[in-house]
């Protein structure tokens, strides 16, 4: 609690990231609709990519919000983001083809109320609070919707609550083995809640650099995608799930290696099995 939050300056302006994140995640999530049009499941992975785009944007938002010092941990911002986001995402999902747009609108409403409450009733009086909580709620909602769409191949509510079970050679429809019926959405909730806050929480300090933090955000997104891809074997066909898994693994390896390189660039020294370097003049 006694460490100052300091963030690096410079880099891509926040508004630019906001637009890329919002439009990118919206477009990518709509690409999963190709599943319905072409009647396949091969396009499910676009949902995960939408979550990655949203998470990169959310990381930058958290950085702006938390540089004010909330008095409680960075992770709490991720919790409130996903807490409001999950309601918005599942509500939005019930509106069929309009799901992603309705999700954004509903998330913005819930986020705005939370932000107004935080600033005007709880009196945080943080200038970026309202905007940040709106953004975070949208990010949380898009992450949930994207990863859910990746797991079951559609962003529509009825697809989320129905699944199939092979029983003695017959395929039976059931509500229990579905993304919502099996509470996989709880896993997605936590994946998003940790991924959204981890990058900034892990990189905070005076040497924080935007490109490294955002690379880590992408890494967290792809890592979450890997696990969702494995879960999706239970809901979508073997080959579509395999495609999603391969894309996630490739994306993860690329971003992880890149992140390590960036850390190496920013580190004071990169040592292997060396003793403590006492600063000159002694501690």
């Amino acid at each position, binding site marked *: 609690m006694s460490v100052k939050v300091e963030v690096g300056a410079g880099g891509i302006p926040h508004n630019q990231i906001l637009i890329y994140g919002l439009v990118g995640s919206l477009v990518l999530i709509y690409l999963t609709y190709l599943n319905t049009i072409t009647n396949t499941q091969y396009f499910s992975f676009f949902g995960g990519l939408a979550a990655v785009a949203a998470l990169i944007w959310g990381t930058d938002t958290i950085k702006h919000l938390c540089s004010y010092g909330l008095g409680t941990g960075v992770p709490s911002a991720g919790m409130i983001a996903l807490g409001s986001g999950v309601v918005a995402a599942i509500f939005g999902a019930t509106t069929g083809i309009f799901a992603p747009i309705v999700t954004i609108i509903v998330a913005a409403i819930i986020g705005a109320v939370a932000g107004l409450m935080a600033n005007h009733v709880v009196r945080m009086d943080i200038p970026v609070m309202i905007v940040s909580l709106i953004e975070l709620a949208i990010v949380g909602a898009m992450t949930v919707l994207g990863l859910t769409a990746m797991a079951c191949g559609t962003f529509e509510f009825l697809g989320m609550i129905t699944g199939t079970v092979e029983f003695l050679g017959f395929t039976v429809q059931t509500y229990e083995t579905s993304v919502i019926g099996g509470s*996989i959405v709880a896993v997605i909730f936590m994946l998003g809640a940790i991924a959204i806050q981890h990058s900034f*929480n892990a990189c905070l300090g005076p040497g924080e650099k935007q490109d490294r933090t955002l690379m880590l955000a992408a890494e967290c997104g792809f890592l979450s995608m890997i696990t969702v891809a494995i879960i999706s074997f239970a809901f979508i066909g073997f080959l579509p799930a395999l495609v999603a898994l391969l894309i996630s693994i490739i994306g993860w390896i690329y971003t992880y290696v890149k992140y390590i390189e960036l850390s190496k660039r920013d580190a004071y020294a990169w040592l292997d*099995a060396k003793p403590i*370097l006492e600063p000159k003049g002694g501690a």
Partner: protein
Amino acid sequence: MEEIVFGIGITALAGALATVAGAAEDTESDIGSQGDPNSQVQLAPQMGYIHRIFNKAVAGEPPAYGLWVALGAGLAWAFMAMQINPILAIVLGSALAVFVQGVYATTAYLGRTASLAKFGQPVYIDILKSMTTVTMAHAFVAIFTTVAMCHLMIGALGHPFPLPLLGLVWGIALGAAGSATGNPFYGKERQYQEQKFGAGVPISASGNIVRYAEAGQRNSLDNGFFSAKLGGPASGICFGLIVFFELWRTVVFEELSIWGPIIVGIVVILVFAIIDRYIEVWARKNFGPYTAPEEAST
């Protein structure tokens, strides 16, 4: 009657699994300096104390364990839906969740340490190689036991929640119990071993953590070795008691009356109130009073 005996057996098994989970969880987080003691590991280089302690700030323990356990449970659920044997499914699910935990741990260490470049704290890459695997092993024990416990609650005791949701609930509770019980022991007694025993760390000493061991330089494995002696087992007992009493009061007393579990729960709370008060009075009798210090701020 047989049903109750069966239920008590499951309750005891779940309590035992929870005890193991709590002990492993606290030891894991102390090796990684996760949770509140992390702030001191983070602060030390800024005060000029360069160290070789693993700095794994993923999140507070409750959210982090909420994810690891929910993820392990979700993957196990998915494997079971693919008709894989439950035990194998839980092992596979926990193993994959541990993989995610390990990746998060490495990125957290690299990120925090690289951002401290201004203070001359280098990245010791051998820390990652040797510590991450140890935390992963402990995390596997914690995740596997908790997911297995949740599976028992559903399969044998008939709790309505699906496995992943139950994993989320108990994962957060595990992290809360482990961090509450284990953190002070690691934070005060280990990081600030050189400070006086039986007193809080003076605020002026903040950041001056112990960095040298009996021989050579202290690393986080020494810390795991230390907290496995008291902090870990105490966290295990804490979480084990929570799970045991939570199940026991329902399984045994629900038959008598639907209000039975609630009355027993209140009685258990009162018993713990007496225990707590006894401990507090014991401490006041034996440890104090200290000479009145200069008037502290109120």
